[in-house]
């Protein structure tokens, strides 16, 4: 089963990369771009066949390693379709 995890900074946490991207876009002449935030996306294959199990395991992976929950939120998507 394939899964994708989206990790984004919590509201209120400063995002220097996002700010820098926003400035750079402005300098390149792209106007009207605001609130740029950069996050991570992690794609992986899981041996699991049960979606609920998979989701539980992914949550544990996020809590333990993939996200720093002091500053980051995560969202899990299972692409069961495939």
């Amino acid at each position, binding site marked *: 089963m394939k899964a994708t995890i989206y990790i984004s900074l919590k509201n209120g946490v400063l995002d*220097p990369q996002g700010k820098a991207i926003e400035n750079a876009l402005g300098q390149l002449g792209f106007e009207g771009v605001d609130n740029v935030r950069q996050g991570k996306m992690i794609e992986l294959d899981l041996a699991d066949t049960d979606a609920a199990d998979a989701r539980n395991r992914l949550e544990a992976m996020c809590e*333990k390693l993939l996200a720093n929950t*002091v500053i980051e939120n995560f969202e899990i998507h299972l692409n069961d379709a495939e």
Partner: protein
Amino acid sequence: MRAAVIVFPGSNCDRDVAVCLEAAGAQVDMVWHGDTELPSCDLMVLPGGFSYGDYLRCGSMAANSPIMREVVARAGTGTAVLGICNGFQVLTECGLLPGVLMQNRNLNFVCRNTRLKVARTDTPFTHLYAEAEEIIIPVAHNEGNYFADDETLKRLQGENCIAFTYAAGDNPNGACLDIAGITDASGRVLGMMPHPERRAEAALGGEDGRRLFASAMERLA
């Protein structure tokens, strides 16, 4: 003093800090990250570098390595811990210190001398410095921008946990409150971005860093 320097794959200041510890008179054990046994020691040192390539988040994978369970347990029983640069990042990732080290404000790696103010001197690492003394110690990092929520920052201030700040106008990374290094409430766990081991002998430009190791030697032996 017996000091254990924890070596993660990708650590690269392990030898540098061992040299300084030995020069201060300590007996140093290099401990490989995969080990679960930690020798008995008075000080545990998490050195600078790029543990696990700094992949995912700096320090995140090192914080989850087997030896860190032992380090956290020992810290809980009062063994002193010093985390320098990547070691500081590991300390925040494993929860021994609060907050996180985000990417530098200008997004570039920065390696240069910085002027620091010593903000806390009642710790085993800093008692040889004078209160509010200005010292010069180099930084070298891409993620040294200390961030914590307001409540945590207030607590750090309230409990006198800020050990070093960058002198006014010399903050190289955008850290909140100009924080360069913090301790836990007891003062026995210190995490700092600047590298005291890089300025611990005159030939390398100065000796301000040497006193940190000398302090530890006096108090932790």
